[in-house]
């Protein structure tokens, strides 16, 4: 029981700053996922704007207010409009869905297996070290 609690400690009650950060980070992450996963190219651009706003919010949370404002001014104002213009100039991409996969599923599965195996090995060795350290303690 002790070991489980040491390995997976219960999350502490969040402070106010964390309580703001967690939804903000979730929003950023969900928007970032939408950028990649949404089939509609314009939705991707909008989700990118959402992500940039989320990142700006995180900067503001880190008390880097000028950085946050520059992020919005440069990225949301100009980069995102440039991206939308670029989408607009390419015929047929603005409306309708585009495929998200590129027929490389086999390679992807191979890669996942290899990386997963390496990660599992690392995890096992790290846990054995942790067990030792707990036992020593």
């Amino acid at each position: 029981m002790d070991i489980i609690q040491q390995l997976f400690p219960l999350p502490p009650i969040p402070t106010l700053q964390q309580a703001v950060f967690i939804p903000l980070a979730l929003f950023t992450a969900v928007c970032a996922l939408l950028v990649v996963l949404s089939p509609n190219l314009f939705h991707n651009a909008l989700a990118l704007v959402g992500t940039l706003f989320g990142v700006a919010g995180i900067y503001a949370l880190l008390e880097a207010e000028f950085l946050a404002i520059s992020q919005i001014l440069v990225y949301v104002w100009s980069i995102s409009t440039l991206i939308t213009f670029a989408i607009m100039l390419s015929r047929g991409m603005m409306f309708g869905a585009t495929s998200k996969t590129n027929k490389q599923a086999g390679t992807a599965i191979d890669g996942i297996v290899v990386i997963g195996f390496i990660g599992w090995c690392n995890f096992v060795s790290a846990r054995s070290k942790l067990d030792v350290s707990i036992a020593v303690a």
Partner: protein
Amino acid sequence: MEIWSSGLTHLLTGLGLPETAAVIIALAIGAFVLANVGPVLALVLILLLRKVISRMQDRIGPNRVGPFGLLQTVADALKLLSKEDIRPANADAVAYFLAPILSVFGVILSLGVMAVAPGWIGVDLNVGVLFLTALGSIGIMSALMAGWSSNNKYALLAGFRVVAQLLSYEIPMVLAMFVPVLLVGSMRLGALSAAQSLTIFGFNTGLGWFGFLMPGAFLIYFISALAEGEQTPFDLLEAESELIAGFHIEYSGMKFAMFFLAQFLNSFFLGAIAVMLFLGGYQGPFVDQIPLLGFVYFVIKAFGVYLLTIWIKGTFPRIRVDQMMAFAWKVLVPLVLALILWQMIALKLPGATLDPVTGDVLQYGFLNYIAVFAGNLVVLGVVSNVLMNHFKREKMRTKRAFEPKSLIGVMQPSSGD
């Protein structure tokens, strides 16, 4: 911010609430009140526009609902509430829903940094001026979303035109806002308003407006703000009398009302920013003695600028899109950059009071102010000369177009007609 929230926080902690909760509730109450100022203000603005424009056009204007027609916009709002919310069959549901909401969102957020009286400011952010500029990006995104999601050729075209116009006039607007910031050395809107006091014999007349010192920057800001707020003569995307409505052509009911509200509030707030940066903000005689007077001054000035935009709306003809782009990039941007260069030199001229140890400027001298003023006068002259020439040409053209052919012989086709 501390001024208005601390009293409320003390009251709440006195009721036995913990410190953090009291602060949050105080802030939430303030934010709620501020957010509600927006829609109420919009009702007044729309009524004012209709009344004043109709007087200019020799009509009476709304006079049926309530005394002097004062409740007309309330009735309109209720009517819009009961209208059907039509969503075009091919529209994109999410973007179509979010676009009108975002347009209001960005505008209401700018209320948070308005310095309406000494100490009365939502928050005096360190980056206040840039914050107001950054909020414009939400307006751009909402226009793009509305144009794209309606799935209508004209809406999409108008959406991209809006973006091109806003992008072009954003640069001269921000650079014109930069001019007073360079003089004061702060982006806080509270500090900028406070810096416009003018103390004569120990009495603050409150007339040290940057509009007097920098008329050129003020004119450039005002013209760009007209374009940013999509007001006449830059309302060619809107063109109520010719085109249908621009990017919100497919919207109806309450969603349309949101765009309408956002547009009115946006043009009013751009005027309010002009008041804070160039027309002294809350400054005026006796404002140090009675802070409430500052609020009255601010409201009077902001409505004065708004009436000026209505006046322009009632009198000026619309300009063409190529003229609009050329005016931004070939007249305003080079001029305001030159003005900034000149001001950078002018502020480093000898005559300023320097800190003997660090060499920092404590107080700019007479020579600095005179040089700044002279540079602004030159810019003012050039801009007004360009404008006068333009309208003189337009007048000639209209005259020629309406005269019978026999009087002027063979008409020469002029390009761009």
